[in-house]
């Protein structure tokens, strides 16, 4: 396989967009459902704990700076057990690509183009998804560099425009919810923004030319992503109130609907939808890239590109058949999806730490090769 490398700034951009990805769209609602007006506390807590998880990931990644997560599995656990774990990992990525595709279709057909069948939106989305992954990591990392400029310009505009609608009393009483509710909400966001970042171990550190700086990028990117989601959550509560935030399926879209600056800048939510589409898209690309590269490495293929078309078709079909309705998806997200993520994103890495501690000497003897 030819060696593609991205630099640490490009990795930072990818991490930021990955962490924001889906959370910005559905996060506030999921957080406010349990934590009410304390949702922002839950968001901040999960951002903090998220850094610990990222620390775990960087630790694991830097043991073998030249290997991807799939290759690491085989080195640590041996060929067959390693392949088994890698299969689980690839399954997670494939599943989440499909779920994100469902998200994008469901969002577009709920708010923007309701009469369009989801098959049409999903196939179009999948086409540019496959295109990005075929063009390779370097290409979509570079396009992410452009996207992030658009993303943050829109984000800053959103924050400035909406600030006139803020009602501070909506956030009171602070710290009213009990710890259990806040912890449950935090867990949800922790899984979506940080635990799922295990997919980034396919890129970090093997495909980055400065692994040491990339470690910093991983932390900073995750922190920025978490903060952006926290800001959106706190804005939703300030502007819409906790009840309306929890009642809406896409509260941040409801937030954008409220923008009205001097009866002149209003009805701009369709423009703001670019925020969520960018986040969703990059996250989807990263999951899909991890899927394709993961399968290629499990099967010792020279190229992952030939896998992208069939996988793309599988993902489209999965996204259309996975859930029969929106409520099913919501339930899946808050239950099964969390278990799957925790299993592969947290338990597996911890197991790796355990095995590494036992086999450390052996690796040292081999000279880290």
């Amino acid at each position: 396989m030819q060696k593609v490398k991205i630099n640490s700034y490009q990795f930072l951009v990818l991490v930021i967009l990955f962490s924001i990805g889906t959370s910005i769209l559905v996060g506030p609602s999921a957080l406010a459902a349990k934590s009410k007006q304390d949702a922002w506390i839950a968001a901040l807590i999960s951002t903090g704990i998220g850094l610990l998880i990222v620390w775990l990931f960087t630790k694991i990644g830097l043991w073998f700076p030249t290997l991807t997560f799939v290759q690491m599995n085989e080195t640590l656990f041996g060929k067959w057990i390693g392949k088994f774990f890698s299969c689980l990992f690839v399954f997670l990525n494939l599943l989440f690509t499909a779920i994100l595709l469902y998200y994008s279709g469901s969002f577009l057909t709920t708010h923007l183009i309701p009469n369009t069948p989801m098959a049409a939106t999903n196939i179009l989305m999948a086409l540019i998804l496959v295109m990005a992954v075929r063009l390779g990591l370097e290409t979509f990392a570079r396009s992410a560099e452009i996207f992030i400029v658009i993303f943050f310009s829109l984000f800053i505009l959103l924050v400035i425009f909406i600030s006139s609608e803020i009602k501070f009393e909506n956030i009171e009483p602070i710290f009213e919810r009990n710890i259990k509710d806040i912890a449950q909400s935090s867990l949800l966001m922790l899984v979506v923004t940080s635990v799922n970042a295990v997919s980034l171990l396919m890129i970090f550190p093997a495909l980055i030319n400065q692994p040491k700086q990339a470690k910093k990028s991983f932390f900073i990117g995750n922190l920025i992503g978490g903060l952006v989601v926290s800001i959106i959550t706190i804005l939703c509560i300030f502007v819409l109130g906790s009840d309306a935030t929890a009642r809406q399926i896409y509260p941040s879209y409801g937030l954008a609907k409220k923008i009205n600056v001097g009866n002149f800048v209003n009805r701009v939510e369709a423009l703001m939808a670019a925020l969520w589409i960018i986040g969703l898209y990059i996250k989807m690309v990263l999951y899909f890239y991890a899927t394709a590269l993961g399968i290629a490495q499990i099967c010792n293929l020279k190229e992952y590109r030939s896998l992208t078309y069939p996988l793309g078709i599988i993902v489209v079909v999965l996204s259309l058949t996975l859930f029969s309705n929106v409520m099913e998806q919501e339930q899946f997200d808050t239950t099964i999806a969390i278990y799957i993520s925790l299993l592969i994103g947290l338990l597996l890495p911890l197991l790796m730490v355990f095995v590494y501690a036992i086999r450390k000497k052996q690796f040292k003897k081999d000279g880290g090769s």
Partner: protein
Amino acid sequence: MKRGIFILLILSIILTGCWNRRELNELAITLALGIDKSEDEYLISAQVVVPGEVSLTGGKVGSPVTLVQARGGTVYEAIRKMTKSSPRKIYPGHLRMLVLGESVAEEGIGDPLDLISRDWEFRSDFYVVVAKEDTAEHILNIQTPLENIPANKMFNTLKVSEENWSATSGVTIDELIVDLRSEGKEAVLTGILATGKQEGGSSKQSLETILSNINIQYDDLAVFKDDKLVGWLTENESRAYNGIINEVKSTVAAISCPNEGKANIEVLDFKSKLKGNVKNGNPEVDINVKIVGNIGAIECPIDISKPESIEALEKIYEKEVEETINNSITSVQEKYEADIFGFGDAIYRSNPKEWESLKNQWNQHFTELPVTIKVDVKLRKTGTVNNSITEPRKE
């Protein structure tokens, strides 16, 4: 091959379109929607713009809007049934006003509003009002002067009067839903009514005289309990309500002078703060009002060139605001037992733990709630002159 893809790309730019596109000439742009209820059926009236009549070049013979109506068991059903009489499908994306008939308000507005919060075509920035002693259908059936389109007149009138007179309250649909769902605040909507002759407002001829025969105007605020209309506030109570919930932007207040006659205060800045508190298990509320104003008009013998007179006027106004607010709260407590001021929310914000036990019998607690009011008035300027015209000249 390359060229083929290139041509395809160019074509796809030109030939794009939405899946279910609806062009402008297929939309019935609805600016006001009215909901009435009679015999278990909703009667929905949609005020739809007639594009030809509002265009700059043509038209000007017929009415600028038309009313499309349909009956149905639910609101959604009725709106879709409108296609039976309208060649275009109702498009509510530009909705400005939602008028609820009094009948529907008395029976409960929760159910009919669900569609409006759920449907993707409705936005959240239009006002909701209640037709006072009238049907929504009748209100939407009146031509208006000055603003060609009645819905725009209603929207702008409410906006302007809310900002400058403060006895009306422009409640948008999302604010209404927050109030309806809140445990510690009941909803309030502004009333709208038709004045003058009750017949013939639908015709454009009613606008041909300087004083139009029939007009739509706003009235005082309607009090809701849960989602049902229970009564109406008076004008003073309405103004006190806006004062308490800190929605006054600017207004004019008439006060009595120390000796006789009246003076007007132009309120420039009106800030009120609600603070809840629970003492020994008993809830109480503090209202802190800060007013900055100018002297607007003096219609009594008072020498305002002396700083003491300004101070005296400040004191009088403070007292009058306090009394109005106090009287309004007492009256709402006695007559409606509905916490429209959001005192419950204030208690929840300050004492969330105690609120848990209070909220079940909040209506009961509300009627006995002690309220402390503190008003602070600052009069800054006296306008372009000092003493009034009738004030004797000083030699």
